[in-house]
């Protein structure tokens, strides 16, 4: 919580709430006799803790403690006009800053714009709190050529190579830019992306999007480790917000790495990983734990007791190595990867069922790293070649984006690149 508590919002300008303020106050009065101090206490802590600062050295939504829900969208740029695109980025920034504070996208936008105008705010978040909404933008490889910015394209920002067993769907891959919305209320995240997309028509078009409903990693030591759809704890060994030295080494781009404008930024790798749920569910527990390399109940590495016990890759039991040579945790571990680490920030997804009655579900993997070519690529290559988990998963979508640094007082999204 240290990140968001460092600068609590002085102006709780929740117009979204204020609109219903009268109703809320009445309800509180009615409820006062029944629940007394509880209502007052919960509402005040809510007001303090659910707004994440929009501006800062780094974009919010990267090391911010992972919220429960996500709506991620990738856009193609449809204009050749740099001016139009920059104007959109400026407008988006204003809208984003307002929405992150829990306000409407435009003042009084849901109902106050006139009866013959489409409302400038779509309204489904009226009465909802900020819900720790974060909005994070990233630029894809194609953006740079389109606007004559090739010399500013980082060498690390290129379409990812084809990995063994990839079965990528072009309709779920790539994009000229992305926006990641994370919040504790799915309606708030969806509202944010919907409104940003709405004003973008004519300048950008939505290429693909993904909803996520359960964070699959912890990005803060304050958070319990969640479980993925295979029922296993995920993100135990993740990088954490509380370790700034590690973040500087593995997540935040230095201005001297390649492109000065990326200093303080990070690279986002997105992979839509379909989980073959039905196959997994028919696999015995013993095999499931062998594949992952951790115990399903405690999350401890095989042969150990506690979830946070350090991986012991060399210990042997009666049948050989305790952690299988091709177990997922082994192949993904920094020990096996020469010290490589990434900040994982993925979400579970379920998009209904496919035509065979199988759950269309899996992990929407999002990782932030300082250089995808030296961090994500070798990690994924190692996994794609050997991981026992490959029998139960399939990578079906892929994209990579350069997320610019955080915003100073007068900055807009991308101002270090567009000036």
């Amino acid at each position, binding site marked *: 919580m240290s990140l968001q508590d460092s600068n609590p919002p002085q102006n709780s300008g929740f117009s979204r709430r204020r609109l219903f303020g009268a109703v809320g106050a009445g309800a509180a009065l009615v409820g006062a006799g029944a629940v007394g101090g509880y209502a007052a206490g919960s509402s005040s802590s809510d007001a303090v803790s659910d707004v994440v600062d929009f501006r800062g050295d780094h974009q919010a939504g990267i090391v911010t403690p992972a919220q429960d829900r996500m709506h991620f969208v990738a856009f193609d740029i*449809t204009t050749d006009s740099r001016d139009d695109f920059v104007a959109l980025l400026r407008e988006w920034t204003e809208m984003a800053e307002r929405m992150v504070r829990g306000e409407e996208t435009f003042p009084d936008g849901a109902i106050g714009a*006139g009866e*013959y*105008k489409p409302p400038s705010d779509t309204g489904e978040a009226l009465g909802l709190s900020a819900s720790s909404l974060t909005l994070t933008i990233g630029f894809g490889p194609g953006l740079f050529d389109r606007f004559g910015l090739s010399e500013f394209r980082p060498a690390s920002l290129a379409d990812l190579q084809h990995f063994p067993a990839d079965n990528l769907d072009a309709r779920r891959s790539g994009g000229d830019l992305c926006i990641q919305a994370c919040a504790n209320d799915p309606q708030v995240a969806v509202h944010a992306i919907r409104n940003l997309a*709405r*004003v973008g*028509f*004519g*300048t950008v078009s939505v290429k693909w999007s993904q909803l996520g409903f359960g964070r699959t990693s912890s990005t803060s030591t304050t958070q319990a480790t969640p479980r993925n759809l295979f029922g296993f704890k995920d993100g135990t060994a993740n990088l954490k917000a509380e370790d700034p030295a590690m973040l500087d080494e593995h997540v935040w781009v230095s201005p001297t790495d390649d492109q000065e404008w990326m200093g303080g930024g990070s690279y986002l790798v997105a992979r839509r990983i379909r989980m073959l749920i039905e196959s997994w569910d028919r696999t015995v527990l013993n095999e499931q734990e062998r594949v992952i390399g951790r115990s399903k109940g405690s999350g401890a590495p095989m042969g150990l007791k506690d979830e946070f016990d350090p991986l012991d890759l060399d210990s042997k039991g009666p049948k050989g190595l305790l952690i299988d040579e091709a177990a997922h945790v082994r192949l993904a571990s920094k020990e096996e990867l020469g010290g490589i680490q990434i900040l994982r920030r993925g979400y579970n997804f379920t998009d209904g069922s496919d035509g065979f009655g199988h759950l269309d579900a899996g992990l929407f993997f999002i990782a932030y790293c300082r250089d995808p070519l030296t961090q994500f690529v070798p990690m994924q290559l190692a996994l794609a070649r050997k991981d026992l988990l490959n029998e139960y998963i399939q990578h079906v979508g892929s994209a990579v984006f350069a997320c610019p640094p955080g915003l100073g007082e007068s900055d807009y999204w991308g101002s270090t690149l567009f000036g």
Partner: protein
Amino acid sequence: MRRTTFALAAVAVLPLALAGCTEKSSSEASAEDIAVTATDTTCEVGSAEGTTGNSTFQITNNGSKVTEFYVYGEGDRVMGEVENIGPGLTRQLIVALPDPGTYQTACKAGMVGDGIRADFVVTGDAVRQADENGLLTEAATGYKRYVVSQVDALQETTASFVAAVKSGDIESAKAQFPITRSYYERIEPVAESFPDDLDPRIDLREPDVEPGAEWTGFHRIEKDLWTQGLQPDTNAMADQLQADIAELAEKVKADDFTIDPIQVAGGAQGLLDEVAKTKISGEEDFFSHTDLWDFQANVDGSQAAVAAVRPIIDQNDAELGTAIDARFAELDAELAKYRSGDGFVFYDTVTEPQRQELSNKIDALSAEVSQVQGVVAGQ
């Protein structure tokens, strides 16, 4: 018929200016008339200049295709038009051009495309009323004029289409099907505004038919023509279509049929929504795959509706009109990629990425057009 309609409409717009000319409109060409000679590939306009007030054009079609003649204002606003000029015929168009400026004339051989355009420069003092109320009235009158012109053409083309169906000439009927529909698709929100199921009778798609209900209209005949062959009741269906369209024409031309200028802008949006909903997916013309004809007609109809309120847009939000012009131009250019002969390629040959590109252009245009109603309402 149409000549009278145009003359009457002009009277309604500018009663004072036209009072002295009414007689002349029904007489033969006078020295002040501008002769237009159209062929399949040329469009010679006798004069490229006029003065504010009324201009009278005498259009002679020396080509082999049916043609039409338009005068456009800013944003392709249709100031006046005369359609269905058969080979060898001469038709008259009186058009009120109230403001000085550069207008455009156009001949459209085969009645499709942008036509052969030329500038028509009008000088003199503006003769329009400048107050907003006048602009709103003029917008409604202008749009009704457009609707009537489309309904007239719809009746004529439907008669010919129905004749082809009933004579069993399937190839001819197939060729006429998308052209006939175009006139309907340009003004469909008007048909939808009548409360007695007129639009469903004319244009219902098979998946929308309730169990047990009778399926009539264009798409029923489309299915007969393209997939299941002529049925025992196909002729009856054709007669029904013609009767329903006659009913539409009667309602549209009724004196008590008035158009709310703010609703004109809503109709412009509605037509684009049509495209986004059923054309872009290829559901509309499921059997014939002639969706792109409808697509273009919806877009043209939307553009005509926007153009009718253009003076109000220009007065209240000058940048919006320019932005909309640009979006219409981009969409037209995208559609032009799929032109084939006098029409379009069939939609089942348009790939997913191509449909996506069309969809992007529609979304971009629609986002701008969605602002028009508020601007017209002065918000």
